[in-house]
């Protein structure tokens, strides 16, 4: 017991000394961070948001769903949490009766990776994907009843990435064969975002026919935009999957994703590198880039400033914790609950069963004999009752016999 206390004292002494060493650094950091805290132009931001829009419906637009979902996967791989991604997916091709591979969406020919597997959170689905809901999402002018997950809760320290795909034309993008959003609408919505300081920087990416016309009307600051094809050009799909039977991805998105796949969370690649991969021959159209509205040139913006989470976690130093010797911790004891509940208890038979099941990958034969055991026991019961009946019969017979005798007597 005494030894343990000595050990604790030694440990705290060590901790304190190392704390003192790191102290000055921490203070400097906090001062620096406060120095830059309220300015938005220095590129400091605390969170990233992404709005991914697939605006077309129906089975033959499979590739648009796949574009969006592949982008979603990439963002998540780079660390953007689901709560900061607003995914608008207008048709559920995964559950389309024409889908030969139900509940899956693939963005490549070999069907290597299912994009529709676990952990997909579609915020706006099916008929919810309308021009109105998209513009309301950007501007934040929602009905009060709209839940948190359907809102873009960005602020002045957020970088926002908008990705759109679908069928478009000169200065418009079609939503679900039903309505269109025009470049003016989007520009006005973004201006409203800027006025309410809903973004620090904005990256607008669009993959559709004549895509570059869609960002031509922007007039708000700090926007970098890029599109797949210039005015009068189509944006083509990349390749088909013969088993799925439709095109699975668009060229522009395919090459973007191919590039992003090479990046990690700590990558220092800039948007200039990102734009550098555009090859009109491969993409079969002329991708456009517009950086005139942004005050920061693309070579100074990291790709991870938009794609990926912001690494800013503050670890509490040990000195902020209560020292193990302090009065408060003296009587802190965990109480062991003696009797575990049956359902979630340890070493429960059911748990054992499940563990064995998962570990061995095969069924424990003993468990499956249980019904048979039950059958045996029933047989026993039958035998028992038969014996009982027999015994009663015997008793009656035995009781009857003396009477007979007495009668006889």
């Amino acid at each position, binding site marked *: 017991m005494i030894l343990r206390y000595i050990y604790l004292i030694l440990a705290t002494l060590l901790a304190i000394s190392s704390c003192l060493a790191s102290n000055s650094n921490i203070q400097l950091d906090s001062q620096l961070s406060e120095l830059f805290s309220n300015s938005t132009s220095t590129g400091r931001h605390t969170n990233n948001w992404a709005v991914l829009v697939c605006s077309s419906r129906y089975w033959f637009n499979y590739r648009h769903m796949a574009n969006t979902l592949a982008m979603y996967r990439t963002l998540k791989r780079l660390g953007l949490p689901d709560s900061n991604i607003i995914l608008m997916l207008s048709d559920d091709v995964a559950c389309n009766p024409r889908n030969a591979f139900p509940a899956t969406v693939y963005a490549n020919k070999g069907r290597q990776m299912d994009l529709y597997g676990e952990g997909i959170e579609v915020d706006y689905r099916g008929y919810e994907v309308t021009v109105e809901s998209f513009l309301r999402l950007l501007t934040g002018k*929602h009905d009060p009843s709209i839940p948190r997950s359907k809102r873009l809760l960005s602020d002045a320290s957020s970088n926002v990435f908008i990705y759109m795909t679908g069928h478009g034309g000169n200065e418009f993008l079609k939503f679900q064969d039903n309505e269109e959003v025009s470049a003016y609408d989007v520009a006005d919505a973004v201006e409203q975002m800027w006025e309410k300081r809903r973004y620090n920087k904005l990256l607008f990416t669009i993959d559709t026919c004549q895509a570059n016309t869609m960002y031509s009307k922007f007039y708000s600051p700090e926007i970098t935009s890029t599109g797949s094809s210039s005015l009068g050009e189509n944006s083509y799909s990349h390749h088909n999957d013969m088993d799925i039977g439709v095109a699975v991805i668009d060229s522009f998105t395919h090459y973007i994703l191919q590039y992003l796949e090479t990046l990690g969370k700590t990558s220092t690649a800039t948007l200039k590198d990102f734009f550098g991969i555009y090859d009109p021959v491969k993409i079969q159209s002329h991708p456009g880039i517009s950086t005139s509205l942004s005050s920061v040139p693309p070579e100074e913006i990291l790709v991870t400033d938009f794609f990926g989470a912001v690494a800013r976690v503050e670890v509490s130093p040990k000195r902020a914790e209560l020292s193990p010797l302090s009065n408060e911790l003296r009587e802190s004891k965990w109480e062991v609950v003696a009797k575990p509940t049956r359902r979630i208890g340890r070493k429960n038979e059911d748990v054992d069963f499940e563990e064995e099941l998962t570990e061995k990958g095969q069924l424990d034969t003993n468990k499956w004999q249980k019904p048979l055991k039950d059958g045996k026991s029933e047989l026993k019961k039958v035998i028992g009752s038969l014996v009982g009946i027999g015994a009663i019969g015997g008793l009656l017979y035995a009781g009857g016999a003396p009477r007979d005798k007495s009668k006889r007597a």
Partner: protein
Amino acid sequence: MSTSDPRRPDGLSSGLLTSMTKPTPAEVTAIINPSNKRRLLITLSFPLLFLLAIPFWWYTTSIERLPLPVSRIDALANLSIPSYRGKILFTADEDAYPKSAPGRPVFENKVICQSLGKVVTDGVDVIYERKRPQKKRNWDFIYEGEDDPRNPTPFRVHIRRFQHANTSWPLEPYVQPPEKGLMTSGIKPGTLIIPVHPDQISDRNLKLHYKIAMINSILSLYPPDPPTIPLRALKYSPNITLSFVLLNEDSTEGSYVRSWEIDDAIQEHFIPHLEPLKDIFNFTIESQILYHAPLTFDPTLSDAPAIGDPQIEAALEAAREGDEDAEEVFVNSERWSLDSGSTNNPVLRFLLYVPKEKHRPMKLVGQDSPHSFLLPQFGSVYLLNPPSTQPSSGETYHLPSSALTSSFHLFTQHLYSLLAIPELYDPGKIHLPPSSSPLLPRSQLWQPISSWQIHQILESRLKENLEESKKTLIGIKRLVDKIKEMKVGKNVRDDVSGAVERLESISSAKSPLENFILSRDSVNLANKAFFDPSMMGLLYFPDEHKFAVYTPLFAPIAVPLLLGLIKEFIAWKRKRRGGSGNNDDVTDEKAEASIGVEDEKISTIGLEEESTSVGIEPSDRVLRSRSKG
């Protein structure tokens, strides 16, 4: 030019007519067609209907744009934060000063305080003057008996002669926490105490020590400018939800926490801090236990043979250290439901993570393996490892509130960071208070928020809200100017003018709390106006779209209407030219001409209307046309 039958004096049925005489085709036409004047009226009624409908169409399709108080919004740009001059009540224990020597004049306690107060204010002024940019002292001392009894000042300084004070220099000022129990000092909580040991009173430099201690502590507690809100803190929102979650990594493997005394822990550690904030924030608290909270990454095993246990390092040092970045992905928000999601208010999550047995003890990478980290604007995480002393044979645990002390101590600190509440303790300036009883050791837990901190919060949040409201209002004004299709309804206008009104009524004469409430309501209304769904009720279209909508509707109707009018006009012209030799009345001419044209035009279709048009025959016009012929 055809005319009606002159012999027919009044309207008769055509059947009767045919039986009497055989009419000419012209006569038949005249009979079955309505009179010329009537025809003109019918023709004109269509364009007239259109003209009448225009105001209605205009009213229903125009965008309501009520005027905003633009000039008042522009005037807000010059609005400055009101400077509030606080009063600090300065008192001292009777025997906190050395007794004057025999033969020297004896001064009243208050007089000594006044002279000391003068020294302190002069010292503070000098410090502020040297600062770049220069600051102004924004408080004054008041002394015993000068306080307004109805509205006592919340700021107090007291020099306390204290038996259990530290006997060494420098003095260690502290803020009086609320006292419980029988042994109370009678000092109001929140008072800044300069404790002095009886042995120290005879010191020659006592006055200097008092001065240094008071200047340091008051500078720390009452800064000249409100503290800025750092990025990690939440933006101001009147309603905040706190969600306490205990996460078992995997309870199926046993050795997990089944229950915790969360009520007691919150009561003990959080309520004292939340209670004083009741004017500023409205807290909602929820708690839950999760039994299955798997990690998305594999914790790395560190080589620590000295301890024996495989030490598992779960999350890693922040990215600035260049290490891996598992901490950001530590919170697996997609799989873990960390709050009920029942509100749209910002949620702060306090996560107590109990790793599964294979992962124990889980620690963060870094010097001396800290236990917790803070996620800006999100919440905080504490890694809680079950005690290694107990046999880890897979019991389930119950956490009494005493076992939660260490984690809640950190959660309290994180709450301060996340809400931008200034810390009370300032190394070298403000110290921990002594324990309430000399028998107990000094408590390391943070004491409840004092009035000094509340004042700072009010000031900084007032500034934040003021700026936010101003920016939002100016933004609304600019947007309404820029986007012509934006609707400005009554709600929006009322909200905007309400927000402006509240901002305008912020003044130095009001108390900081009143000003804060005004700013809070103002920013609330301004946001409500900005995010009003009606401002985007209709999708707006470029002009081409409008034409595209209206053309298919109106083109088919417009063609016969316009053609009819043109025909009438041409006929009238022709008539004018033809009849210019006559001396007839011009208006008559016009009417006749148009009737003539109408006759020709409608005669083809007029036959269909036979049954209805029979027998309508005003006689005077017929006579006139007869005279003309």
